[in-house]
């Protein structure tokens, strides 16, 4: 499958990273005025904006559930986020990712606290350079926190790939395309549980275990950045008051 040398002889990746190195991360919280909570994330060149509404009333009302809040999530890519223009209507891929993103975030939210309501999470990918679902999840956690929604933990997400026979952390586009496996993972790091796990490609059991370890390390790094971003955000808000 590999058509291109993705790992140099001295173990560096196309963008110069080491195998277990994540790309530069930039978070910005509270970037939108109308959304109840919002966050922007750059994971290398992958750029995502997430807005959150809720808890609010659900329409039509008969869809409401008496003992918990319904989580809705939409993952969506801008037509200009990729090399070949993507028509704006949701693809099958976007529909599936919307589902797994929702299921990755829901375990962190105290849904029992808001019966008969809904929380809506909208993730807009404005530039895609691999691991967009991971960025959407990591940013959505911060947007949820910004909206003041009580959570068990933040959800941090990262992907691991097998590329030219090596396991690499934080997969970028070319590694996804020409690598031999891709495995996005999301965790609640302080709870030590996994809320998203997908994989395709070929891994032995040993490789899988190592990938999972690597993902754990990566999620923890994302988690640290998330917490930093939140702290400085809430500190600023306090100071502004």
């Amino acid at each position, binding site marked *: 499958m590999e058509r291109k040398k993705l790992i140099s002889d001295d173990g560096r990746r196309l963008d110069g990273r080491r195998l277990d190195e994540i790309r530069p991360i930039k978070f910005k919280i509270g970037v939108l005025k109308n959304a109840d909570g919002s966050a922007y994330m750059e994971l290398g060149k992958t750029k995502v904006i997430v*807005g959150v509404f809720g808890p609010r009333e659900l329409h039509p009302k008969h869809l409401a559930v008496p003992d918990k809040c319904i989580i809705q999530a939409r993952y*969506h890519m801008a037509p*200009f986020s990729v090399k070949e223009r993507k028509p704006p209507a949701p693809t099958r891929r976007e529909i599936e990712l919307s589902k797994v993103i929702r299921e990755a975030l829901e375990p962190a939210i105290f849904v029992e606290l808001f019966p008969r309501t809904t929380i809506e999470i909208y993730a807009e990918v404005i530039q895609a350079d691999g691991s967009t679902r991971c960025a959407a999840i990591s940013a959505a956690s911060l947007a949820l926190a910004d909206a003041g929604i009580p959570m068990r933990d933040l959800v941090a997400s990262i992907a691991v790939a097998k590329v030219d026979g090596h396991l690499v952390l934080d997969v970028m586009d070319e590694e996804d395309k020409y690598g031999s496996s891709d495995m996005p993972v999301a965790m609640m790091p302080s709870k030590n549980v996994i809320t998203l796990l997908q994989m395709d490609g070929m891994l032995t059991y040993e490789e899988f275990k190592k990938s999972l370890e690597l993902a754990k390390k990566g999620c923890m790094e994302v988690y640290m950045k998330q917490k930093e971003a939140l702290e400085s955000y809430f500190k600023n808000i306090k100071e502004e008051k």
Partner: protein
Amino acid sequence: MTISPIPSLKKKQIYELAESGKRIDGRGLIDMRKIEINTNILDKAEGSASVKLGDTYVIAGVKFEISEPFPDIPDEGILSVTAEFLPLASPLFEAGPPDENAIELARVVDRALRGGKAINTKKLCLIPGKKVWTVWVDIFVFDHCGNLIDASALASLCALLTAKIPKTEVIGNEVKILDEYEPLPIESLPIIVTIAKIGDKLLVDPSLEEEEVMDCRISIAFVEGKDKQEHICAIQKGGRGSFSYEEILRAVEIAKVKSQEIRKIIPCGGK
């Protein structure tokens, strides 16, 4: 999109303020909100720009595609503008295909660019009658705090100004796309200015609260022609109310002044 109920108290307040030449956010009647333009904010788009107009936040991206020309203009490239009102941009927006407001916005921006001859589409013809460039301008609305039309038109224009189109080589009926780029043939800078009518006052660049209570609005695009004169290149009246002649002429005069002001702050030296 449903209409959010604005307490009639707020409506009364906005009308009374307007009556005495004031606005709820402290602006004068013909003041724009602060405009912040960022260009070239994305690598994968061939051109891109974000515009903040007050808290209204819009991103436009440009992509190219080789396609067949329209049969009635076989020697011109195609401009295609779409707009998405993202559900995160307002508690009232819903996910789904563009509604009439998004379609109207895209078409008004399209008409301003087209009517104002912003792009020399003849230069986007590759093989007459067979292959031309389609220029896609996709507008994404991230925060709806009023006056989406002006913000979107500005973001679209700035995205086009920063766009780089690949050079090509035509061999027979095949087009080879080269790895060299050049700017788009942008020949003029149409600017849309939207003015709301509140009572008998005209307010430039209405905020969301003002839009929700206004009688109606008029959007007017101006462009500098080759004769160095200002020309109107698109108009769209919107909303449920009506204008008198005098109001329309006044609105056009205001838009002329304002569009020139905005044109001055366009980055890339106006190009």
